[in-house]
């Protein structure tokens, strides 16, 4: 098998500089950036996707990172940017397959995820709410609820302050709560096919037991 060739010189280069070089189509820089973060991203994705899909999804995330490096604008840290791509890709994948398991953990940290069954309508609203959250808030929410990190850990991971992390979480939760309370599902038309899948799944569930 091939191994990734990374010169020691590149190991010294900053993340931002690597991203800049990737946009100049420097493949060694691309390999270096991935090598730096692949384990972290693996850990992050591991909690969000079906293990059978894992390799495929990880590859897609890594491909997207490299392809969109030229659009990185430096208004967040490279790490936040990487996590946002990973989060978004996993989210898209789960949504397209009608799998929302990890969502349960986002709104309720009482009983275990299995014991909590969101009604379809409630979940559609939740999905819409999550899609409207800015990346920065959604990421904090997930890291806190799904990955179980403390605000201090999130802060050091994303390069923000712990207070900022708390604020973002608060805002995200408030936005989701109001989404769940509101009766509006008008923005959900794009979910039609998903809700079909979903209704299929619901019909299957009793038969499976």
């Amino acid at each position: 098998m091939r191994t990734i060739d990374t010169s020691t010189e590149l190991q010294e280069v900053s993340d931002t500089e690597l991203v800049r070089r990737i946009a100049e189509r420097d493949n060694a820089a691309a390999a270096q950036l991935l090598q730096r973060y692949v384990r972290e991203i693996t850990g992050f994705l591991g909690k969000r996707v079906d293990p059978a899909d894992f390799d495929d999804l990880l590859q897609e995330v890594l491909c997207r990172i490299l392809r969109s490096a030229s659009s990185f604008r430096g208004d967040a840290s490279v790490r936040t940017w990487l996590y946002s791509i990973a989060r978004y890709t996993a989210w898209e994948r789960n949504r397209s397959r009608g799998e929302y398991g990890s969502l349960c953990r986002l709104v309720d940290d009482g009983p275990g995820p299995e014991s909590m069954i969101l009604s379809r309508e409630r979940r559609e609203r939740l999905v819409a709410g999550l899609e409207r959250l800015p990346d920065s808030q959604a990421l904090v929410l997930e890291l806190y609820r799904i990955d179980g990190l403390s605000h201090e850990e999130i802060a050091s991971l994303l390069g923000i302050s712990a207070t900022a992390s708390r604020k973002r979480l608060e805002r995200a939760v408030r936005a989701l709560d109001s989404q769940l309370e509101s009766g509006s599902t008008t923005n959900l038309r794009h979910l039609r096919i998903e809700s079909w899948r979903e209704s299929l799944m619901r019909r299957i569930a009793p038969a499976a037991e």
Partner: protein
Amino acid sequence: MSLELSLDLNRLDAICQRAVDDFAALPSAIGRYRICGELGRGGMGVVFDAIDPVLDRSVAVKVIRLDSVRSADEQRELGQRLVREMRATSGLFHPNVLAIFDADYEIADSGVRGHYVMERIEGESLASRLHRDGTLDRAAGLEIAVAIASGLSAAHAHGIVHRDLKPSNILLPEGNDPKIADFGLCRVGNGAVDLTQSGAIVGSVHYLSPEQIDGKKVGAAADLFALGGILVRMFSGREPFAADSIVSHLDRIQGGAPSGLDALDAPLRALVERLLEKNPERRPGSASEVRAALLALSRGKSHPLTRSRRRPRGFGRVAAAVACGFLLAALGSDLGRTPASNPRIHDEAALLAPAEEREVADRLALFFAESGIDAQVLFDSPALGETTSAFATRKFQELGVGQRSPAGRGLLFVYDTRAEELRIEVGYSLEEFLPDPLVAYLLRDHARYLFDSGETRLALLLGLRVLQDHLRLAALGGEFDPRPYDALQALRYGSGGGGAGQTAPFGRNALAAFSQIGERGADWDFSAGATPQETHSLYLAWLAHGEYDTSATIFTEESRRYLAAWPMTRAYLDYMFLKESGQRPEVLERGDRALIFSTTNPFVFPHFLVKSDAGWQIDIAGEVREIINIAGGSHSWGLRSANAPQLAPFRDRLVASDGLIRIRGADNRRLRTFGPETMPVELAAQPRS
């Protein structure tokens, strides 16, 4: 443990390497433009982030694959058409139109690849803004609308019509005026389709104008209609003609009242109603007039276009009854008249050959025996000035459809030979069992397609089969109980198919490894089972020319769960197409995976097979995940990803086509094109076990 870890790291390294390889495989340059990365992928192609080294500026390069099957001359024509369209747009300098800098094309083995170079902006599209925020406030929305109207006004003055205006084509640069993108692109796409088929529709269905659906001449007024739709979307959060299926969506655009207008204040609503007039001539005269009206609105002033007027006739017509393609008709009581030759077939246009007519008549008789429904067929042209629906209603009564039925159940297939339109007129006691979007979709699109291609007999038989199947499921669920269904076990769908003398589509060899299926003679016909799972098994047994064994584990465990909830087995429809058209599927085997697909029929869905300890099994779950069904779309189905485990072994036989993956060597014809859209299927009558 250390071994496991190092293996895992090797795996991660390999994945990293593949990602780097993928990145390295992006073109390094297109024309003189250096490619830095990707900005997005859409229906028509990929947009690259690029640098123009000569002028040293960032640009966006959109690459579109135009066609891959045409002759060299036609390919060149397509490329030149792209260049012409882009040249026209590039002459358009306006702050609200995304600037085009360059365009070119090349012809390679894989087809024509065109590209054009655009202004690169930082920002999002109106579509993603609306997706996130739901609606916009009045001031922000009006500002965007004014900008769109300005851009349109400039374009129309140059004789350029957008034809595919929609939120995803409106870009919102940060701190700058909104810009309309993709002018002229639709026409290139449309041209590409025109070469293969006339009257095709390209564009986002949501904002299509009625004249585009009708295939009439499209002018600047089509863009104004789209702008009306965008206004509704921005302020109400709703698509004005949204519906459950693409067919009913198109119906609503053509004949239904827009929804979401309640969210608009009176002057805005007056303007939108004018923009959404079905008749292009009744819409406002120009984009600049609309712009003036929008500006007046944003300043709280009045404008002639924002004053409400009496509603035009027919504006509020509700199309609910025809939403699924079914027309409800009151059943006539004593107007019945029975024509002489064949009591159920009224073929005034002589579309059926005598043998075909007999076959269809037999099938109609069988349908009546099985379901108690009096189904009849009429091919005729309406009276002068009479609409297809009025014609259908009148004939339903004149022919006394349903009078033979004990419960008064009647159904009339009406093919309007002048308008070339198919209607299915349904008696009052039947409609509740029928409006399943899937049924409607099949009947209206597939049957209409078959009519269009001269396959009249096949269209009728298909329609009947689908109805039979649907009613049967309703009967199983206890929702429909005509007497003939009392003895369900005795029911045989294939009984009308004339099994004797027909051979299964391919011999046992192809699926010899299907050890679960027993031997059986060549002269038996498929028949539906008591459950969808059984029906599927029987289909497979029929394909393999074998005998169905109830104890066989013919489906993967996951698939069995899907089948329990499947409304109408796909196997059944596939059987319909294969059997009725006499076509054959191919089996492709690679190691522990196999694909069954029709080489000659674009309607037949591929089946995924996987080999396990129990022998070959059908992977329905894989199908559900990997097959996209497209309602009235350019294909009847496509595959999602070549990377799926079910498909990966067949990669050499897969081919990308119109943004979908299809099987190389199969019939990948374009069918009627309404623009790619995933079909939402609602499950209707379910068997209750």
